[in-house]
């Protein structure tokens, strides 16, 4: 009887529309983080104060260089229908990303990001190859609350962030264009945003949840007034220490982008939705300040999961240093 009831509930959940299923799943994750039991162990560690932070409160600066390779599996149309790439087609990119962080004052971390990418796309009737700088981004992250101690009422660590993205990347001109989905050499406009992050330990396991919202300013990237839709990124993740120097992490991310306006008209069906899963192994040498990680992410090629974007997988490796 128990298993039958469980099966009935699962059927009911799966029969919900995709957006409702996502909302329900997000609510469960949020409750899981906030209402989880108090950590059995003291949360004090030399981990950064949140997944978005690059430094701990004991460190002053950090630098990290990441390289990633991405391959598209297909493209989702406006209805979430997936068109897989044929064997003779290719959409691929490689990206180099430099991130720097500085704590000044101690409670506030300033973080910058600048990338360069190479992008290739070809089908039977079209070929495109581009490379160049990406947009520059600046975050200010501030930790409002530290995670509660075991003897205190349970509460996660809470941090907030502000974002400014500057359009340094290659913008569309008469003939060139942005990459789709995976690599965006440039948005072509300024982006202002903010975010919030919760983090909590459950024994040895760490859980985090973050949300980032961004507003895109109007631009003339296509030679006429254009306004990209607002963006929301939600992320839920967990990490598990495997040894003093090694940990594993997994995350689930969802991105939602509103519809685009062109010449003052909102274009229906241009909003985007992208779901991703990722896993990584991270190593650190605390004494010397080195950190490194390798990861794999997947934007699953499942019909109806995403829309107006790309299904893809990506491999990435990062080497960082903090002091």
């Amino acid at each position, binding site marked *: 009887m128990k298993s039958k009831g469980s099966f009935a509930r699962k059927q009911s959940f799966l029969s919900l529309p995709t957006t409702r299923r996502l909302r329900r799943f997000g609510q469960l994750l949020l409750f899981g983080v906030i209402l989880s039991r108090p950590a059995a162990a003291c949360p004090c560690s030399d981990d950064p104060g949140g997944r978005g932070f690059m430094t701990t409160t004991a460190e002053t600066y950090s630098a990290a260089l990441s390289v990633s390779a991405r391959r598209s599996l*297909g*493209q*989702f*149309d*406006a*209805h979430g*229908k997936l*068109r897989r790439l044929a064997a003779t087609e290719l959409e691929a990119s490689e990206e180099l990303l430099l991130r720097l962080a500085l704590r000044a004052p101690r409670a506030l971390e300033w973080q910058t990001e600048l990338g360069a990418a190479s992008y290739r*796309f070809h*089908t*039977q*009737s*079209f070929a*495109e190859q581009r490379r160049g700088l990406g947009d520059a981004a600046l975050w200010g992250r501030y930790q409002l609350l530290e995670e509660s101690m075991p003897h205190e009422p349970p509460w996660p660590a809470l941090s907030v962030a502000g974002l400014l993205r500057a359009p340094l990347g290659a*913008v*569309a001109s*008469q*003939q*060139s*264009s*942005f*990459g*789709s*989905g995976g690599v*965006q050499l440039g948005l*072509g406009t300024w982006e202002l945003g903010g975010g919030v992050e919760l983090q909590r330990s459950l024994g040895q396991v760490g859980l985090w949840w973050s949300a980032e919202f961004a507003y895109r300013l109007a631009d003339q*990237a*296509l030679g006429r007034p*254009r306004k*990209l*839709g607002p963006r929301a990124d939600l992320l839920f993740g967990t990490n598990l220490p495997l040894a003093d120097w090694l940990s594993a992490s997994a995350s689930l991310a969802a991105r939602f*982008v509103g519809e*685009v306006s*062109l010449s003052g*008209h909102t*274009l*229906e*069906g*241009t909003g*985007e939705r992208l779901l991703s899963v990722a896993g990584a192994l991270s190593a650190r040498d605390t004494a010397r300040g080195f950190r490194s990680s390798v990861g794999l992410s997947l934007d699953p090629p499942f019909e109806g999961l995403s829309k*107006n974007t790309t299904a893809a997988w990506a491999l990435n490796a990062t080497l960082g240093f903090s002091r």
Partner: protein
Amino acid sequence: MPAFLPAAFAAATLACGAAPSTEGTVIATSQGGLVQAHVEFEGAVRRGDNALLVDFVALAPAAAMVQLVAIEALMPAHGHRASADRISIDASPFRASGLNLFMTGRWQVELDLRVDETEDFVSFPVDVP
């Protein structure tokens, strides 16, 4: 089947704000309200080169001479852009070819017009499977 049915269906679909069809005839009114464009893709819309037939019905009494100057398609979020290679103006309807909609997804197709001495344009969405 009566010839007007696909056009009527497309008009009803657009009027309801539903997703654009990937085949059949699209009927759209120009931004300036001078003409109505009847656009028919040769075969279903497909990823790659497309050809289309474009005809116009004058809505304003003064609109007599309509020129199809250019056809451009945009994916505004990604900055993708494509344009028709050739536009035949020998006979009505106009025939445009070489419109390479190279990426799956929603494109916004724009017809640049000259109605008598006035510039106007028609814009409509197309889903590329």
